[in-house]
């Protein structure tokens, strides 16, 4: 069965500092990869996705992620965070031949400290 591991459940970081949120997945075959953000009391919003092509993917709000097939990782990064980035971040994968079914990680709570 497919699994997604987000290694850090909580990440505190000071405002304007860089941040990396880690995501690893268990699959030996190609998958589609996503990062979603969830602000308090709201639904999930797509930050970025990797379907194919360049391994460096740029998303909204200054976020980017790099697909590393050999390490089965898809870490999310931002060079300088803002207070408004405080939210829950979910990594998700779609394995092949699953009818586009998402498998989500357990989430990382990012807290930006002023």
């Amino acid at each position, binding site marked *: 069965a497919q699994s*997604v591991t987000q290694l850090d459940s909580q990440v505190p970081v000071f405002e304007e500092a860089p941040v990396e949120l880690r995501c690893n997945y268990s699959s030996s075959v190609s998958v*589609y990869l996503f990062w*979603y953000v969830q602000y308090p*009391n*709201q*639904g*999930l*919003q*797509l930050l970025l*996705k990797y*379907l194919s092509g360049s391994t460096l993917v740029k998303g909204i709000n200054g976020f980017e992620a790099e697909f590393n097939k050999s390490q089965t990782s898809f870490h999310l990064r931002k060079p300088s965070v803002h207070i408004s980035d405080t939210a829950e971040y*979910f990594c*998700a994968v*779609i394995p092949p031949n699953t*009818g*586009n*079914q*998402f498998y*989500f*990680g*357990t*989430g990382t709570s990012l807290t930006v400290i002023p």
Partner: protein
Amino acid sequence: EAGVAQSPRYKIIEKRQSVAFWCNPISGHATLYWYQQILGQGPKLLIQFQNNGVVDDSQLPKDRFSAERLKGVDSTLKIQPAKLEDSAVYLCASSLGGGREQYFGPGTRLTVT
């Protein structure tokens, strides 16, 4: 473009009662999903519809949960009877023809006491 709408936003019920959630997807989106998000966990797919047909309901606890999508637009998810462990946020999402980008609604937070 209007997003995915869900109601109610919050619901508190006692165990063994029944409850229903409603979802209106983005106009023209053929695929609709219901997810359960327990506190501290990622969303878990309960059921996926393509138009008004069920594509996947393998993780739906069918002894107490049911869902329908009449006319291939709105959908309702029902729990009867509810258990304490059903306390969660229920998210509805839709996508264009089963595409790989899903759009999520704000969710319904259910508390079972």
